[in-house]
């Protein structure tokens, strides 16, 4: 039998990446969270509750859809879309927030806080807060509040407070700083619902476990539909939660290749991008050691991407590990090409994708045509595009 993948280690490491780099005030809360999480993952009652809300509330399983017209257009591999855009709230983020809200309830917390970039994680947190009855505060950069105003309004409708963050780049990185500062202050009654596979241990592990439902479903769906495993999995990578969620259950299926697509912004030869894995150096930000965009002195560089959800200078430690051991390959797609991907899926499949997975969709143009027609690709369509209409309007004009 093959060796099972058992990472992270007890101290939260994936090879040389991960760990717990936070102020002492939070260390006990992290220990407590880890303890509760490990208990919950073994607890049938918790799993049953998690499964219940995923199915009855979030509408899972999400379909695995054969994109026939897109496949014909690209004249290559068969393309399947894992339709996370059809989950409640319109993105995969809800999988994680349901799990964390259930844990927060067990730990007796009364308040949830979260950072958000595109607003999808903020919406997903506000959603579970409304459903379970938590007080909810969401930190969001002022730049993102402007470009994702629909999601800001949705959060407010569900009773959450959206706190604008003025500092730094006024995007996801700064919203995360502010959320951590809030947590340090209110750690006794507040649970921090981190939205990606980033942050100090046990967050990268916990978010992966909750998001793995994507890959588990996709695996059983493709086995039913095609009677075999796929050849490629493709997903966008900002922090990396939808991609890890899809990849992780296939880790030991060595023939299944993983492709992560980072935000290339204006191009990775420029300074304006968010490709932490391709262009970053190892460093420590927001509680873990991973690849990171930084300058000569070790100051964090400001990331750039048309998609607020990928506009982050870091990436989850498990992705750094996947890259290091060459389990996954990473590419970057520019803002302009992401818009092409956005348009392609809209026109050929009648599905308007979020700008984040539009990066991955564009990569299909490079990948699918050079593969034989019997090859199978699954793309994680991590979210729907309604939130991005205002941004896209500025770039795609009609007579």
């Amino acid at each position: 039998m093959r060796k099972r993948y058992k990472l992270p280690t007890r101290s939260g490491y994936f090879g040389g990446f991960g760990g717990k780099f936070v102020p002492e005030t939070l260390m006990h809360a992290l220990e407590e969270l880890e303890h509760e999480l490990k208990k919950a993952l073994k607890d049938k009652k918790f799993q049953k509750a998690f499964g219940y809300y995923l199915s009855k509330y979030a509408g899972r399983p999400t379909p695995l859809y054969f994109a026939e017209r897109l496949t014909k257009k690209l004249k290559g591999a068969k393309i399947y879309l894992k339709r996370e855009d059809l989950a409640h709230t319109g993105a995969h983020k809800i999988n994680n927030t349901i799990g964390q809200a259930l844990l927060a309830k067990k730990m007796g917390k009364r308040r949830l806080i979260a950072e958000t970039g595109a607003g999808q994680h903020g919406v997903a947190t506000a959603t579970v807060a409304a459903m379970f009855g938590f007080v909810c505060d969401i930190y969001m950069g002022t730049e993102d509040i402007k470009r994702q105003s629909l999601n800001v309004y949705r959060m407010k409708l569900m009773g959450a407070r959206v706190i604008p963050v003025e500092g730094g780049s006024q995007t996801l990185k700064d919203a995360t700083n502010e959320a951590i500062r809030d947590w340090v202050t209110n750690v006794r009654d507040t649970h921090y619902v981190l939205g990606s596979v980033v942050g100090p241990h046990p967050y990268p592990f916990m978010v992966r476990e909750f998001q793995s439902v994507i890959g588990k479903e996709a695996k059983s769906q493709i086995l039913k539909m095609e009677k075999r495993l796929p050849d490629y999995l493709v997903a966008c990578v900002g922090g990396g939660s939808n991609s890890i969620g899809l990849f992780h259950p296939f880790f030991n299926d060595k023939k299944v290749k993983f492709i992560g697509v980072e935000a290339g912004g204006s191009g990775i030869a420029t300074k304006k991008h968010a490709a932490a894995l391709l262009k970053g150096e190892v460093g420590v930000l927001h509680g873990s050691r991973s690849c990171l965009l930084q300058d000569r002195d070790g100051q964090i560089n400001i990331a750039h991407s048309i998609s607020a959800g990928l506009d982050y200078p870091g990436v989850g430690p498990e992705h750094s590990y996947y890259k290091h051991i060459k389990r996954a390959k990473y590419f970057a797609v520019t803002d302009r090409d992401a818009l092409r991907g956005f348009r392609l899926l809209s026109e050929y499949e009648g599905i308007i994708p979020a700008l984040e997975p539009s990066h991955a969709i564009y990569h299909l143009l490079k990948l699918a045509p050079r593969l034989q027609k019997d090859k199978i690709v699954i793309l994680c369509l991590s979210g729907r595009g309604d939130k991005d209409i205002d941004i896209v309007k500025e770039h795609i004009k009609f007579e």
Partner: protein
Amino acid sequence: MNRIDKLFTKLKKQRKKAFIVYITAGDPDLKKTGKLVAELEKNGVDLVELGIPFSDPLADGPTIQRASQRAILSGANIKSILQMVHSVRKKVKLPLVFMTYYNLVSHYGIKNFVKDSKNAGVDGVIVPDLPPEEAKELIGAAKKRDFATVFLAAPTSTKKRLKNIAAKSRGFIYYVSLTGVTGTRTRLPSDIIKNVKRLKKITKKPVCVGFGVSNPKQARRISHLADGVIVGSAVIKVIEENAKSKDLYKKVSKFTNSLRKGIDGK
């Protein structure tokens, strides 16, 4: 024995408490930081914590965030700060401790950071986002050169954690008075007394209290229970308000003198 240990031994004999001030190196510029350190020594300060500014200081409140931004914009980095310290060390005798975030230290290289800091005349380092369990490499490098590693203890630290923090700390232990980020507070939490006593039962190493301490009265109260009082944001505010004024040093000195008197109960 390094400067920090000597300081606390001396103060203990004199039955006095340490007055520690944090300033951000490079705020408003490195030349002024150098002069401020010398002025602080003359005006009742026993130890200076020099902040190496980081772009994302997540343990800091708005005051030190702004100071860090100003310092980065003024061009301060580890190299230029070390040069400044090197020349200041010729003028001052008080212990100097760096305070910074882990990415800067690990990016510079841990061994080199310790070596170069020690050579420039720095006596130790505080890294607020580095708990002892992640600090093996830093502790190892620091031990070799008698360079202090000051770890933070918090109101939320369990007894087990406090024991480890005390064991790994050299120089002193930094007790964080409250759950929160740095910054002035009008009121300090009532559980400080209980928590500092709890920590002092575990260790004989000096315990200094910081975060939130902003006026002579609060400093006085803290000095009753701890071995030292740390003031940061309140001093930074004075620097911020007078950065361009000729009276910068006078205003800062006046403020630190008032805190010294508070600590000494005068």
